[in-house]
């Protein structure tokens, strides 16, 4: 019996080690306004209490994708605002874990809680109980007195990505690994195709859905299946960089999603748009500090500096880079609308008539159709 007990003790020790290492367990780290470490004391001119901000991530902050982009936003905030104290929690799952995290930070009196993935329903459940805390949720649409939402216009970046992909010599069949076939991703595929066909009208895109935002083996296999089917360029819209390694191994070009991932596929890297959340987080935090914060829906694109472009790879010509920059400026000053009709879907239906467009306010409702030239379908349900 004694032996059995000592075994249990060892097991507990194991579990503790595991928890400390923070594999599946949520992990909480606090950083004060001082950049990176606490070594350099900040010149806190304002004597009042620091603004306390909590970030909630559904994955790990160095995932090379979605969460890393948000973490970069947090770092931007720390670097550009005085008298702010931020903390974050990793690996939180939607549902009860989100709600528990929102309640934790609410009851600790945090000024701002930012949920960096889809969590509107969980936020709206908890927010009324903590009226002194402001909650921001990514991708939501229903505001409340202390709840605002934000989202980046993926399609702005995806159109530019399409220009880069379409200008690659010899590229006609693009493999596209999508997470879920939701509006945002479909909108991105469509904008990508508009850009790609502007450069080369023969381009076709094959979409494969992995039905996950983070499943490296599935992403790897989906990408490999696309290469096997003859794809001569790969693009991805999933959280993690597994598709990049397949492109690298196959020696074909690669377009990343949401963050500068040039280090992931040094040879295949072409470009990819980036989510630049930092300026938005900063503006929200400053509005809170000044007492001017209002609940709002923020949908930011190139013109709002919420979407940017990662550095270009060596295979992208100066000519293409200049064109991408020109189109970027045209989108920013409003002279170019890449969603201008006519647009036909891949079933042959005219979805945007001649002279029509998809207005900015209705962007997030689009799309439930795949544009002409995209092979694949939106799964039912």
């Amino acid at each position, binding site marked *: 019996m004694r*032996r059995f007990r*000592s075994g249990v003790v060892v097991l507990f020790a194991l*579990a503790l080690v*595991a928890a400390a*290492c*923070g594999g599946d367990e949520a992990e909480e780290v606090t950083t004060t306004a001082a950049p990176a470490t606490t070594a350099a004391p900040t010149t806190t001119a304002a004597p009042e209490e620091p603004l306390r901000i909590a970030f909630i991530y559904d994955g790990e902050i160095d995932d090379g994708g979605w969460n890393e982009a948000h973490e970069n936003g947090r770092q931007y905030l720390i670097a550009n605002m005085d008298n702010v104290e931020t903390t974050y929690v990793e690996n939180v799952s939607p549902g009860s874990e989100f709600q528990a995290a929102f309640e934790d930070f609410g009851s600790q009196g945090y000024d701002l809680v930012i949920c960096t993935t889809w969590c509107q329903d969980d936020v709206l459940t908890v927010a009324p109980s903590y009226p002194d805390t402001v909650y921001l949720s990514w991708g939501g649409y229903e505001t409340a007195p202390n709840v605002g939402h934000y989202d980046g216009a993926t399609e702005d970046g995806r159109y530019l990505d399409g220009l880069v992909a379409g200008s690659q010599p010899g590229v006609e069949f693009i493999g596209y690994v999508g997470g879920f076939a939701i509006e945002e991703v479909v909108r991105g595929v469509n904008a990508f195709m508009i850009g790609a066909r502007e450069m080369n009208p023969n381009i076709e895109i094959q979409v494969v859905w992995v039905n996950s935002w983070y499943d490296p083996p*599935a992403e790897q296999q989906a990408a490999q*299946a696309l290469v096997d089917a*003859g794809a001569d360029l790969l693009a991805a819209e999933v959280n993690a960089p597994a598709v990049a390694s397949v492109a690298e191994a196959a020696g074909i070009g690669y377009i990343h999603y949401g963050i500068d991932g040039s280090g992931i596929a040094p040879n295949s890297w072409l470009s990819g748009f980036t989510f630049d959340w930092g300026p938005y987080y900063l503006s929200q935090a400053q509005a809170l500090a000044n007492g001017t914060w209002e609940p709002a829906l923020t949908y930011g694109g190139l013109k709002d500096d919420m979407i940017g472009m990662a550095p270009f790879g060596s295979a992208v010509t100066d000519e293409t880079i200049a064109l991408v920059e020109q189109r970027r400026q045209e989108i920013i000053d409003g002279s170019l609308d890449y969603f201008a009709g006519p647009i036909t879907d891949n079933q042959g239906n005219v979805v945007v008539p001649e002279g029509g467009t998809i207005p900015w306010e209705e962007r997030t409702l689009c799309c439930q159709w795949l544009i002409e030239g995209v092979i694949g*379908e939106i799964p039912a349900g």
Partner: protein
Amino acid sequence: MNESVLLLSLASAVVIGTPILLAGLGEMMTEHSGVMNLGIEGMLLGGGVVGFWMSTQQASLPLAMAVGALVGALFALIHAYLAVTLRVNQIVSGLALVVTGTGFASFVGSLNDSSLIYARPVSKFEPVFGEAFRDLPVVGPLVLGHDWVVYMSWVLVAVAAFWLFRTRAGLALRAVGEDPATADTVGIPVGLTRYVYTMIGGAGAGMGGTYLMAGIFSTYQHGISAGLGWIAFALVIFAGWRPWRALVAAYVFGALRNLGFSLQILGVDIPPDVLNVFPFFLTIVALMVISARPAAARRFSAPSALTVPYARESR
């Protein structure tokens, strides 16, 4: 073109099946000694992350595989100490190992300023045979197009089968797994045997993890195995604890994971999630078929003393 998509999909199945096979073969040896180690997923990630790190530091891939195997074996040593010496519940200990290994991998993966995600192996696993062989129809991509790890795994299957059923040491091993008390009376060191084979199991998982990261992905990502360790565990049962069957089953399981995406490209709408369930579903079917036939049940069932701790002179 459609045929070639399926053919290449099968070739990819051999590649993704290899880490499953390495880990499953190791677990099979462990289970033949009467120890069940549910911690494959943890050992795969824990051994793999160190093996991958090794591959980013120097050019020798065999060395990276060896280091991965060693770390996997060390993780298994924890399980052996708990399960054999302390005689704790093997299922609980194995599950603890999953959490430990996963956490360890995340910890190591984020240690440096720039995480392991951005690190690359120094050298690549190159195909063994020349292009002339690889371009042969059908056998080219399926059989001759692979790197040395795939062929090594075939050799290991043959060695395991020979070892288990054609050598005295294999007989001793199976005796320990079937009836440790009897094995003990004829002088077979039960505890030592279980330690050794549990560590061999860990080494298999560590090698599988290293190949997964350094070979198939050329990158580390958090939770990169996404349940391959559990498929390896199901593989042992599905294969009826027989190495050659494990070889076939590993590729069937690998193909099932791959096929969903190839079918999507061919316009057949089967959700990949459905195909992902198949390894476990097939395992249950195999168990049902085997248990319904007494002759088969005798040949392909689990070692009798599996998960039962052995203490001399206790009943």
